[in-house]
């Protein structure tokens, strides 16, 4: 059942690098990461690759396979012809460290800038109550495994380094949306999402949704609803006026937050 797989793997660091050709034995039912591991164990002991769970749950083994951002552990060899050469390169939106490992610190920086959850006080019995229908939208976004493939594929930063400063990226728009939809949060991050996080930069071309290994509908369920919420706050005079007159609407009394200080 096994066969010899041709692999082209990008090897190098951030000075230079090139695609190297390898042939490795693979078995039925294996994924790209298995092939990489076998290569590592038998031919290239120093091949740098990130991985952890090998079950699509941790989001470590992100790379680009035949040019498409994928998790290596969730890309089955059966999806390719046996004679086909599979090309694996590191994520191209981030600075490369070595081989398939990239410096994803951009994402951690953005996480840090996001004002965190600030809930209302607990109920009298020390517990909190939220209804299932009210948490479901947020739960979808919290499925995110932080593989950063959406950040990798997003042309706003992939093709324009200078945008990284002012653009949080799809992964964090998920977070903004999650918090804005949270039934107990007391912060209003809509203006911040537009101004500091760069929601307006997104031109909803949906590549983030296409690559999400968790199948989160990033664009339809998080980014566009968040854009609409920003419109409520910034661009729709009628809704804005309404919120000033009827202050006890469904949003409750939320406080507009400022960006977190740079540490």
């Amino acid at each position, binding site marked *: 059942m096994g066969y010899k797989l041709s692999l082209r793997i990008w090897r190098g660091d951030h000075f230079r690098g090139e695609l190297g050709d390898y042939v490795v034995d693979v078995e039925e039912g294996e994924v790209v990461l*298995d092939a990489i591991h076998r290569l590592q164990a038998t031919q290239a002991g*120093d091949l740098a690759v990130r991985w952890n769970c090998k079950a*699509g749950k*941790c989001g470590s083994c992100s790379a680009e396979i035949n040019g498409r951002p994928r998790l290596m552990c969730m890309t089955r060899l059966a999806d390719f012809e046996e004679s086909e050469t599979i090309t694996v390169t590191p994520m191209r939106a981030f600075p490369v460290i070595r081989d398939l490992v990239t410096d994803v610190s951009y994402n951690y920086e953005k996480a840090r800038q996001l004002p*965190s959850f600030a809930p209302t006080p607990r109920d009298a019995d020390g517990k*909190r109550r939220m209804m299932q229908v009210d948490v479901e939208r947020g*739960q979808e976004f919290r499925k995110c495994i932080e593989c950063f493939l959406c950040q990798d594929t997003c042309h706003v930063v992939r093709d324009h380094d200078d945008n990284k400063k002012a653009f949080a990226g799809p992964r964090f728009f998920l977070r903004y949306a999650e*918090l804005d939809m949270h039934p107990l949060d007391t912060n209003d991050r809509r203006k911040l999402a537009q101004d500091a996080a760069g929601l307006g930069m997104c031109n909803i071309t949906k590549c983030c949704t296409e690559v999400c290994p968790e199948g989160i509908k990033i664009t339809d369920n998080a980014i566009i609803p968040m854009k609409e919420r920003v419109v409520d706050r910034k661009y729709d005079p009628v809704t804005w006026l309404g919120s000033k007159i009827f202050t006890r609407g469904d949003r409750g009394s939320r406080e507009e937050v400022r960006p977190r200080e740079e540490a």
Partner: protein
Amino acid sequence: MTGSHVVTDENANSQAPMAGRHPMTGNRMTDEVTADGHGFEEHHYDVVVIGAGGAGLRAAIAAHDAGARVAIVCKSLLGKAHTVMAEGGIAAAMGNVYADDNWRVHYRDTMRGGKMLNNWRMAQLHAQEAPERVLELEEWGALFDRTDDGLISQRDFGGHRFARLAHVGDRTGLEMIRTLQQRAVELGIDVFMECTVTQIFKDGERVSGAFAYWRESGRFIVFHSPSVVLATGGIGKSYQVTSNSWEYTGDGHALALHTGASLINMEFVQFHPTGMVWPPSVKGILVTESVRGDGGVLRNAEGKRFMFDYIPEFFKSETADTEEEADRWYDDKTNNRRPPELLPRDEVARAINSETKAGRGSPHGGVFLDIASRRSAELIRRRLPSMYHQFKELADVDITAEPMEVGPTCHYVMGGVEVDPDTAVSIVPGLYAAGEVAGGMHGSNRLGGNSLSDLLVFGRRAGLNAAYSATRFGVEPPRVSDTQVREAAAHALAPFSVGGGENPYTIQRDLQDIMQRLVGIIRTADELSESLGQIEELKRRAEGLTVEGHRQYNPGWHLALDLVNMLTVSECIAKAALERQESRGGHTRDDFAATDDFWGQRNLVLTQGAAGRVELNHQPLPVMPDELKSLFEAK
């Protein structure tokens, strides 16, 4: 920084702690790279937490809250730790679903699940504090599934009398780690990602710091810190079929041992009854117990629900003996007993093992786990979304239409660093341990769901006490000497200079093979003795490891260093397993099949002797106070 009572090295406060490095990830920001990664970075903290899973993050948050300057050091990126793999839920007697549930019931379940070998005080603290720890997560943004009243929903799990596991679908671990990660980031705790600790320093008897290297550059770091919290997780990577990731190389166990701390209960390794068995590349990946909690049953090749044949005397009174009663239990827990599929994990794993050995297994050497014929496709997809996804993507199996094939997989080590139950300190002052790396809490077998709650309860306790302990040093904290640092560096670089030609990957594979074959679910004296001999042989081979390439992000080198820990821990397991001549929980001896009261009164304690050899001693089990004992007599 709050907590001005914590006095640290003034010099450290004034300099930027991570100059030239990214403040969050610790990744290098300058272009300058040298192959030999010259020099050392030095950092001063009150508390250094090793590991960024549930326990490590919770410890860091607690230490920060207590006013300490904290660093988290972790081998992977932040948020990737093995906690994300936990699926089922967090066991906590909140009583949201069954008002009768309380900490005493949870305590009793935990002790019985561990075959009474648990440290009674840890089990008590755990049961008492878990509910508040769960509510705390919600405070920090976790979105648990809800009951109809809007409270945190709780689900059934093996060994728990009541539905007790707070959960989010079947990805509770992910929710927990993300919540704690976001909290730690909000508090501004320094995180050293992709950074491996190779040694813990002592000044006299007291911890004084740690030695580490950046995986990215191979550059060394010296941490000066009077408190170190181990939260490194388990040892599963020493086995061939495991649900654990590459990180689980027993680093914390080995570090503790080398630092002078003791390990207990190392013979108890939990094999989760349901791991995937096919295709080969995913063998061992976990299939959550929630499948059974939500109605899934185990069948052999003949289609028989074989678990009814494996109900042990100890659990007879609370386990259903007919399929009808078992099926009624899901809806009416008061008048029916639990299905045998929900016996503690050790029982189920052994049963599956027996079925496959008797030739009644599935085509790929497991048994069938069937939920498709028992629950609607819609319910399965809603309650078990990531299981559905996992089987669909990796095995091309639709679990709403066909049964899964499952078999035991190495999942968890009950043994670990011996700690004081209340403070989580080991016998070495300043060295703390929490989570899987700590021992005692789960006795001989851990109940599902008790791991996540363990991480939170004892992570917090370890963090608080590590911070308090650090405050006891004024301007004279324990010191790391230059000699210690030089020796640590030389030790870490040894694989580059030794020319034995041994490949670390090959030795790792051989070790996994030995542990799987000889120190697996069912053990015998002969095989255990043989394993000890073979481990000794591997240790000898490991001295001749050769690593190619240079220090920059070199997995071969990293493995060479981790391998030493794996060998140490494997030896501990095999040694303790050979000594304990009975079967109990996660330790089953073919030659001593019964549980023995003599062994039920003692823990096996491992330490490192003067010549670097592992020494084993017996230690009486701490005696449970009478008011807790009465909980077991009443039934």
